[in-house]
């Protein structure tokens, strides 16, 4: 009788032990599965975030373990730079300076994205934006000039805000050019970025330099001007020599 009881208690203890072990294994498996799901969720979130800076097809190729080949694309490059920002930077508090710069970038980026452009990079107080680089866009020229005009309005609005706070006004120069560039992931093994390589971006940056010379805030090259809607008001300016560009480039000031 006692033996039977002992056997029964032993069997019960064995079953309980097995149950506990099974339960612990299951809990561990569930925990690991949740961690895996969280990691996959984070990866998905990262992929979506990444897609704002690099075309989706490129993101997918990178995830699949490959490096996408460069591709020739017709793009419109917009290069904006703050005029006289360096002396201003030396006069005001660093915290305030960063705040002003961030507010300015925020407003300019909004104007660019609302017109289907993508901010490619911020270079000091400069902005490089691309139109037609992520997805082919037959209306990229008009979009880019509309974005530049929207940036002008945003800047005027921001200057009113700065004046109310007793802060100096900002002024910018914007250069735009349309042409073919090579799109791809460029950089070192440690750091790569999606960029358009070639003359198009350089010309936009050099044309931006001409804004001070011509006393105009937005300049477009002839290559872009000839594709634009006739509703834009353009003022022709003398062709100018640009550093690193063989032939003089005809430019137009965008009035409205």
């Amino acid at each position: 009788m006692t033996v039977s009881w002992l056997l029964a208690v032993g069997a019960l203890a064995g079953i309980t032990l097995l149950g506990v072990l099974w339960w612990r294994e299951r809990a561990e498996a569930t925990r690991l599965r949740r961690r895996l799901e969280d990691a996959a969720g984070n990866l998905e979130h990262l992929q979506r975030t990444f897609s704002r800076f690099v075309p989706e097809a490129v993101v997918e190729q990178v995830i699949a373990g490959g490096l996408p080949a460069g591709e020739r694309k017709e793009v419109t490059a917009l290069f904006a730079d703050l005029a006289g920002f360096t002396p201003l930077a030396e006069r005001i508090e660093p915290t305030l300076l960063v705040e002003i710069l961030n507010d300015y970038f925020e407003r300019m980026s909004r104007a660019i994205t609302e017109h289907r452009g993508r901010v490619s990079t911020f270079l000091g107080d400069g902005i490089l934006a691309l139109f037609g680089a992520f997805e082919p866009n037959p209306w990229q020229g008009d979009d880019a000039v509309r974005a530049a005009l929207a940036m002008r309005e945003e800047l005027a609005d921001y200057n009113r805000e700065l004046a109310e706070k007793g802060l100096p006004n900002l002024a910018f120069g914007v250069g735009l050019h349309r042409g073919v560039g090579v799109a791809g992931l460029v950089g070192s093994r440690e750091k790569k970025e999606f960029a358009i390589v070639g003359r198009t971006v350089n010309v936009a940056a050099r044309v931006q330099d001409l804004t001070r010379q011509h006393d105009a805030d937005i300049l477009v090259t002839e290559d872009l001007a000839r594709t634009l809607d006739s509703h834009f008001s353009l003022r022709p300016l003398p062709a100018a020599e640009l550093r690193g560009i063989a032939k003089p480039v005809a430019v137009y000031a965008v009035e409205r």
Partner: protein
Amino acid sequence: MSAMEEIEWEECWRERGHDPELERHLRSSLGFVPPPALYFFDCPWIPRSFAEIGYLQGNFRHVGWELYEKLNLVVSQENSCRFCFAAYRFLLRVTGVPEDRIRRLEQDLLSADIDPSERAALDFARKLSRSNPLPSREDLQKLRDAGFGDEALKEIAFVAAHMVAVNQLATLAAVPPERWERLPDRWYVRLTGPLIRRRFLSRWRHPEADHLEPELRIGPFAYLVNAFDGLPIARSMRKVIDEAWSSPLLTRRAKALIFAVVAHGLGSARAEREAARLAANEGLEADALEEVLAHLASPALDAVESEAVTFARETIWYQPAPIQRRARQLSEKLERAQLSELVGISAFANMLCRLDAVVPDAT
């Protein structure tokens, strides 16, 4: 929570319509009224298209139920349509696909543990749903290499392209997704899941080949519809296109312009030529069309057409919240039914122009 639920989505800005006859028609065809259809009752060809092209109508000879649902899921994910994504996620769950498989599918299609032929179909559907470029011959060849014949390939393209249109309808109306997002976890859904599954699967049919009669081989986009001849979906396409074309809410010229702009933006050369032909038939000069395609504006356009062409362009590539705000703004400029038709025509233009990818161009 799925990453899709983090996507910004505006409050629904349209009121649901009510039309007992249309609702009866949808219920008798589909067994239920698809929620996006409710917001377009003032433009009847749109809700009717759900019943006509719908998945429960025995339209597909080669695409099975599970592949159909997965195609719709990945296209909805690609288009960030929270409503459709939640709805198809729910349908996959109740039709027996385990939660972890669905999660793997939505989180990482490239490495998800799925059948290679299914992966090829899903990858193709994602490419087709993107705004530009459309899938290439190499992409089509990958599908053939995965074992899909020409008819199956066309059906896969059709399912994906149709979902692009449904995504646009649901997104532009900002159909509330929250209820559907929570539905799979409700106790009553878990309890009634097998019944829902039976109800859906009992309606799924693989039909016989179906050839168009000569009188159905003409009309707008005949080249496209006729390329699907032999598949039951061709008859449904013909019917929906004809109904949309004859609807009086927008002029035919405005509709042709919408098709032309979407085709131009997508790089669909053949659809653009067809839209140009339709626009010319409605009296639009070639120069005016050229100007519209170059700059989305022309003095030859009236006020509604001007709004229509700029809006059509915005439907080619969009983010949900900004396009929802844009559609809401347009509701102040256009009559409600006109806006419904504009949204519907733009959505179907995005669908038809994408199908160019599977129709060989002889020129």
